[in-house]
């Protein structure tokens, strides 16, 4: 590498992917200037505990700060969201009007919770979404025993919040539009397993319906909801867990194909709406849509912790040597903890057209499912059987390096 000392690299998004990219740049010998821009005032921290230990730990939420190693030598511009990108001029504009010129830019802005449509008006008080530390603190303060918690959406996040609510002694109702929790991403066997976890723990799971109207009392605080099936639920606190949308709104007008995540090639280079590489711009983590070999090269935004790490490390390497780019070589993986059951997956269960249940033991809370697409393995999920995943992962890795990545 030559001329490094003069290069200025900018990372937008100061969380997991942004930090990992910065670390990788320095570890690979980048000596130039490095700026990390973050919308939040916090130094990088970890999000997975926010829907788990942070809600239930006695004595307050644990510190989930991510360690920032010495030697990163970055300029941190925190609390200053980026608002625009001009790839022709190679500049990023921040909310305070600052314009940052860059030689290389990484988009690592993550995702934001999906909200109710704006025509529903402002939600009552004590209705939450959960993405950042402030959300977790505010929600935790309202989760007092004896209260009634309504969780809208029984995906992983909603299910974890429901489990936390039960652990804290609240009455919990979970509303899910699908036939079973998680069915779309993990199939009906896992859906039934999770439904069983909820019901065994005493949560009231209502499926195939949605929260149509949220009601509030004279003080503006939530009192309950009317569901799509006409029934009503009383509730003091609600969490909307309707999924997350990549936080790429600030890229409007940049020419990037950023709707639903910045579309990348497998070297994590950002593409424009014509599918051409945008020179100098890269993306990683929840904000990126990356071609998945296991889904025939279809670009997907996964929203998994470990994928954000893998993508950020690869994107950072490609930023340093754009002429010999590094291809992403990683198998997606995901975990969740529900009522003490350890759910772990590798590959892309959601891309499968067939799920084969290898083991299903509701009593011992053990499960093993393999997922196939046109007969080929694309993923596996276990509950309480993590050890079994290593072999699947090897197989998936072999597969994803031998099929075209799109």
């Amino acid at each position, binding site marked *: 590498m030559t001329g490094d000392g003069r290069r200025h690299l900018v990372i937008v998004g100061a969380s997991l992917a942004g930090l990992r990219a910065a670390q990788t740049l320095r570890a690979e010998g980048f000596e130039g200037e490095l700026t990390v821009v973050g919308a939040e005032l916090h130094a990088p921290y970890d999000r997975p505990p926010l829907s788990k230990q942070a809600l239930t730990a006695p004595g307050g939420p644990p510190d989930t700060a991510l360690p920032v190693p010495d030697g990163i030598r970055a300029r941190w511009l925190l609390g200053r969201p980026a608002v625009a990108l001009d790839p022709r001029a190679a500049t990023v504009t921040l909310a305070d009007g600052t314009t940052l010129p860059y030689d290389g830019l990484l988009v690592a802005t993550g995702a934001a919770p999906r909200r109710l449509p704006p025509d529903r008006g402002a939600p009552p008080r004590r209705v939450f979404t959960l993405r950042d530390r402030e959300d977790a603190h505010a929600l935790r303060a309202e989760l007092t025993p004896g209260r009634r918690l309504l969780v809208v959406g029984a995906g992983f996040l909603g299910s974890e919040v429901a489990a936390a609510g039960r652990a804290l002694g609240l009455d919990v109702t979970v509303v899910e539009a699908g036939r079973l929790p998680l069915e779309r991403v993990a199939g009906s066997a896992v859906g039934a397993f999770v439904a069983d976890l909820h019901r065994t723990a005493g949560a009231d799971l209502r499926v195939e319906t949605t929260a149509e109207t949220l009601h509030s009392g004279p003080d503006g605080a939530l009192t309950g909801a009317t569901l799509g099936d006409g029934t009503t639920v009383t509730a003091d606190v609600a969490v909307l867990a309707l999924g997350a949308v990549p936080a790429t709104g600030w890229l409007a007008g940049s020419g990037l194909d950023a709707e639903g995540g910045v579309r990348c090639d497998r070297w994590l280079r950002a593409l424009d709406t014509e599918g051409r590489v945008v020179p100098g711009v890269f993306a990683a983590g929840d904000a990126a849509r990356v071609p998945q070999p296991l889904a025939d090269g279809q670009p997907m935004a996964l929203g998994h912790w470990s994928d954000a790490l893998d993508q950020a490390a690869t994107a950072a390497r490609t930023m340093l040597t754009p002429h010999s780019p590094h291809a992403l070589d990683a198998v997606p993986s995901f975990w969740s903890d529900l009522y003490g059951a350890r759910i772990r997956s590798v590959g892309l269960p959601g891309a499968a057209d067939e799920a084969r249940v290898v083991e299903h033991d509701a009593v011992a809370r053990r499960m093993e499912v393999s997922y196939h697409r046109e007969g080929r393995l694309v993923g596996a999920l276990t509950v309480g059987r993590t050890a079994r995943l*290593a072999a699947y992962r090897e197989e998936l890795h072999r597969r994803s390096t031998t099929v075209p990545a799109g």
Partner: protein
Amino acid sequence: MRVAVDMKLCESHGQCVFAAPQVFSFDDEEYLVYEPEPDDALRDRVEKAAAACPVRAITLGPAS
């Protein structure tokens, strides 16, 4: 090279097993077992494993 895993932190995520199966594995009860003094040739993989651990339970040090 020395490897240590803080078993009070470990939540059996398996990321280390994926990254360095030569060094980390699970026993039948889902407890992590590992080789505390792996060959230096595996350093790269072990560093990847430490970085991939969601609870940062893995620490590396020089061989004793």
